[in-house]
């Protein structure tokens, strides 16, 4: 049973609870902490919230949830981001991956594993991109072969490589896209697997990102044996699995990111001299965030009213990137020498976040890919040359 009737009441109850438990939830490190500290903090917070039921609202009962609208978990994520209790990017993997398991795994598997993701005892990653497969996801090559006849096989053997897999080296499981059709079968020959990261034959090599953080990794698969009941969706039906992530990524995750951006712009506002130049920069960044927030809100209202989200969320995606750039460009212009020369924890945090913010036009479909989609699907401009 959900304890509050409306989203607004839920939000109020949640904030009251978070106020009371603030000390217990707060990170123990100063500034942003190391990646290991951040992950430990997130898992600790998830465990506390699961224990107190907050992490269970908005998730179906068959996977350990307490039911209620998905908007409830969106509120939770946004509240945590607004209070700086965990990194919204790391937390968003819950929102991206749990629904995939709920919709595409066998009910038994979903019931077994989803609670562990929610309660902070596990982390999962998303293995889509490959060295030669970025924007054109349908060209992926990491191969899965059935042992024997594919229709009766109980096991599959996976060989290949993934890259830029966020938090792979912290993860217990991976939602993995593989090629199961002929090499040129594009999106019709892809199968999704739910793979345990401790399966023999998997090697993870962390990669240092542009901001010095080892947040993503290369993942190598060398004769990795996975049982058939770990297939998500159907054989050669992996494209639908990949695409199903979109509505969650483009609603709930965005709302959490947006909450964080408001919090950062507020921090920036308090750190800056109140000159007209600075006010104009802050004002303009705020316009970007407001445009983004109102758009995201109307998208989520449509989702809650039963709409299927599609190409129009490319607009939300472009606006999120614009908002992210606006806040951190403002930081660069307002905090003199902080991003470039300040070695305190304060400088380190702004520097790390500034550099990370550049990825907003890259991951989850690049800015150009979004514009291609908008042109073809929303403006009906036909195909490119």
């Amino acid at each position, binding site marked *: 049973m959900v304890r509050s009737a409306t989203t*607004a009441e839920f939000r109020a109850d949640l904030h009251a609870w978070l106020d009371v438990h603030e000390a217990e939830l707060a990170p123990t490190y100063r500034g942003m902490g190391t990646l290991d500290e951040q992950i430990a903090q997130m898992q600790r917070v998830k465990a506390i919230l699961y224990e107190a039921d907050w992490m269970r609202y908005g998730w179906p009962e068959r996977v350990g949830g307490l039911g209620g609208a998905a908007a409830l978990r969106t509120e939770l994520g946004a509240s945590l981001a607004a209070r700086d209790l965990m990194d919204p990017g790391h937390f968003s993997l819950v929102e991206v991956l749990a629904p995939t398991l709920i919709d595409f795994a066998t009910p038994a598997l979903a019931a077994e594993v989803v609670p562990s993701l929610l309660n902070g005892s596990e982390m999962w990653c998303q293995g889509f991109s490959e060295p030669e497969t970025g924007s054109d996801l349908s060209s992926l090559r990491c191969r899965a072969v059935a042992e024997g006849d594919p229709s009766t096989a109980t096991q599959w053997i996976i060989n290949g490589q993934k890259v830029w897999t966020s938090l792979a080296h912290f993860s217990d499981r991976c939602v993995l896209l593989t090629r199961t059709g002929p090499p040129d079968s594009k999106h019709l020959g892809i199968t999704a697997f739910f793979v345990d990261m401790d399966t023999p034959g998997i090697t993870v090599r962390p990669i240092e990102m542009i901001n010095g953080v080892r947040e993503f990794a290369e993942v190598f698969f060398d004769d990795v044996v996975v049982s058939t009941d770990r297939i998500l969706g159907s054989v050669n039906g992996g494209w639908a699995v990949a695409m199903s992530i979109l509505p969650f990524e483009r609603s709930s995750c965005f709302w959490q990111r947006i909450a964080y951006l408001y919090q950062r*712009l507020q921090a920036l506002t308090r750190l800056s001299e*109140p000159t007209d130049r600075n006010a104009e920069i802050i*004002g303009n960044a705020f*316009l970007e965030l407001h445009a983004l927030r109102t758009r995201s809100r109307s998208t989520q209202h449509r989702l809650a009213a039963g709409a299927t989200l599609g190409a129009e969320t490319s607009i939300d995606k472009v606006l999120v990137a614009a908002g992210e750039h606006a806040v951190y460009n403002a930081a660069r212009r307002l905090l003199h020498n902080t991003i470039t020369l300040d070695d305190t924890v304060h400088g380190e945090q702004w520097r790390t976040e500034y550099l990370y913010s550049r990825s907003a036009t890259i991951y989850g479909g690049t800015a150009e890919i979004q514009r291609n989609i908008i042109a073809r699907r929303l403006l009906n401009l036909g195909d490119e040359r």
Partner: protein
Amino acid sequence: MDPDESELLTATVRDALAHAAPHASTGSAIDALLAELGWSDMLASAPSEAISIVFSCLGYANAASSALDDALLDALGVDALGVDAARCVVLPARGTDPPARRDGDRLVVDGIATVRAETASEFVVVVDGAAFGLPAASVRVASITGIDPRSELHRVQFSGPLPKRLQELIVERSADWTTVVARAHHALAAEMIGVNRAMLELACEHALSRVQFDRPIATFQAVRHRLAESLVAIEALGAAVDAATEEPSPILAMLAKAIGGRTTRTVAAHCQQVLAGIGFTTDHAFHRYLKRGLVLDELFGTADDLALAIGRTLMSEGSVPTLVEL
């Protein structure tokens, strides 16, 4: 108003304005048409929604009108009808400050007004929390040609003894300039949605029909991305105006207007580039929208003015409020 009702009303107003052949129609003809459509009843029963719908349709049709006077008088609680003709509101000549000030027991007014300036019985100004009515005969009115003569604006000036307070005659309440500004911001932002949608439609039509290098220019990614960028800006503006419509508040309206100004610059620039030579002529409709957009950005504060004002407020309060919730 539920979504179906508002869609129906939008279609009705849009079609009526389209049939009136707006490119040849005058502000007073549009006013007559709005009256026929029941504009004043709409405004009385659901002001926010009526404004959002009617102004975006006006923008789309590139129509001049005096609907803004009605919207602002409604916000002031002043009857739109004066003694023997409609009242006309004096708008700021620049920014959001009231266009009138007291100088001892005299009143000095320098502002602009809609097409209603030509027929008004009385000009309404707000000074120090009170609305005053200036008899039309005492006001100097000159029509403005400017960049967009079709917007039919007028320069309005007055200097003389303080006239009678209006609300003593009409309603018992103070005239709040903030409410007037919020109304104007909301209406103008909605009008900009229409202006921008029209520009984007013209540019998309052109992109699909214009052939160069043996194919429609819509097949070139550089062209497609400009048009996509325009749609993103317009949809964001639409969401900001919706938020201001749902909850009439000065800050939400001001944000919508500021976003409107920015959107108009983005969309106009991209669409003008895509339309290229043909869009550079007065034969093509684009120029009317470009010019209207420039005028609308100017009225009640440009995007730059408003961004600065908002930024100052955020800095002095040390807070960046989220304003809208799920």
